[in-house]
């Protein structure tokens, strides 16, 4: 299965254990969550959205893969992925505010990240 076109996830929408490809770009906002998805374009994570949000562990299959740039736009946007792939990672986060959950989790497993 493939989903050809852009995907926007809002308002607590979610998807788990999908194993599917989103052919273009992904935007996630407002508590949406997504796991085991491969994005051929870019992914932009806002608000308190979560990528790789599961306890599913497979070190050979990324829980979240982005061919283009994975950008976190918020302190509270989070990656819980135990492994993931990204063509590039960007942090477009305002300097003010407390520490966000995404940073600590990313740093826990930096060796799977391709910069």
């Amino acid at each position, binding site marked *: 299965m493939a989903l050809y*076109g852009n995907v926007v996830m809002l308002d607590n929408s979610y998807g788990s254990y999908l194993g599917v490809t989103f052919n273009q770009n992904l935007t996630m906002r407002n508590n949406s969550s997504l796991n085991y998805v491969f994005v051929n374009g870019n992914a932009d994570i806002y608000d308190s959205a979560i990528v790789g949000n599961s306890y599913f562990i497979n070190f050979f299959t990324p829980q979240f893969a982005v061919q283009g740039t994975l950008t976190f736009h918020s302190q509270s946007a989070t990656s819980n992925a135990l492994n993931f792939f990204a063509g590039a990672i960007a942090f477009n986060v305002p300097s003010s505010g407390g520490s966000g959950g995404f940073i600590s989790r990313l740093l826990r497993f930096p060796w799977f990240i391709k910069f």
Partner: protein
Amino acid sequence: MALTDNILAYWNLNNNGSGGVSLLDSTSNGNNLIVNGSPDPSLGSGIIAGDAVGNGSGYYRTTNSLDFSGDFSINYWAAIPIGAPLDVQQFSGATYGGFDLNLSFNRLYAGIANVGYIASYTFSPTFDSWYMISCTRSGAEIKIYLNGSEVGTGSNSSNFTAIFGLFACSDGGYVGGSSAVQLDEIGAWNRALTPTEINDLYNGGSGNTYPFYLGLYYNNAQNDGDWGNLLNWWQDPNFTIQATSLPTSSTPVNLYNQVTQNTQGSNQCFCLRATFWSADFAYGLTLQSSGVVNMQGNSAMAGHSTDGVSMHDSSQLTSTSVIDGNVTMRDSSRAFGYIGGNAYVYYDGGNAQYPIGGTVAGTVSYIGGPAASPQYFNDQVSGAGSYGVVDDLNNWWADDTFTTRPINSVGSQVLPDPSTVCYVYGTGFQYASTYPYNFSVTSIDAYGYGSINLASDFDITVSEALTMHDNTSFQADG
């Protein structure tokens, strides 16, 4: 469509002026033949004005590759001599896995060299008798015809573009071998000829040759509009060879000017079938045609036709017209008269007449209109269809009251297409009635806890975006 449309090459194999066989391509495509081997095939009398008589040594091949990547057709005449070898090669691609079409001593077949038959028809041809061999491919469907009648089908969509050999077989990148067979009137097209066109080529056993003049041509040269005036009829579309007799019920006719009377037939105009080329047919006349009447350009039919009519361009059935059979309307054609059969109206980019005028005794079908937009999916309301089935028309609605159907501009409800904006409610997309299924639309907005099931054989294509709202979810159970 004319038989000259999408033609790749035509070799009539007539006298080249020096007693040999002409290898020229009759079309303007320049696909002349080249001789290999010696001696050359010699000139015979043929089905029409000469043919090539193979001798088991010399053979021909095409100058260029013929584009058989998609739809294509081959048509030729063949006669197998007594004592010919079992495998009589006639029309073969010069590559491994090339396409070939052959009439052998016990069958007609289309096949792949060194692989096997695609379509085959078992019969024993009479030696030294002419047979017309035809093969068409439309999509993946291959049909073979013998003397204008379909005798076999098969399936193959491979790219068969290649240099082709005549009298010869493929032999790994070149043509080789040679067959002692007679060949004549060979044509190739990069489209599938219709059964009617193949029948026109057969022409009752007499054959037809490029540029495929058939029947009689009317131009009203005498300016009297008289079907019954022989001086208005010609044997060719250039109006240079005068007809020797008026059309009969076995004559196809082509009308290039108005017909207003028939002084020889009590206004009863007999033909096998008629094609109108921006020609008018007056009230009071009856076109006694046993085949479909084809109207092109801005033709107008005001009289009576005993068979159906196929309308194109801006042709018109006037208010006085009476058509006994079915009417098919394409392009910007219009109907205002009486249709005794059914009417089929194609949308054709929005040019179709909707609703059609006049009276239709049968049914009217509007075909091909785009889906209404927006459309709302909900499988959980009164009148809804099957649970979660995306291609169930009863799950689609015109708005979020879920009470009216999304009827398009030609009065039909059709499933969303790439021009449709979709909103999804209820349980969302769970299944399709058939798989694999590709749901292609402009956009999807999902609401209300519905889900989108990303099953393995269900693709979704959105030209803008798929947006998930309100606790909606993706699933993947396939």
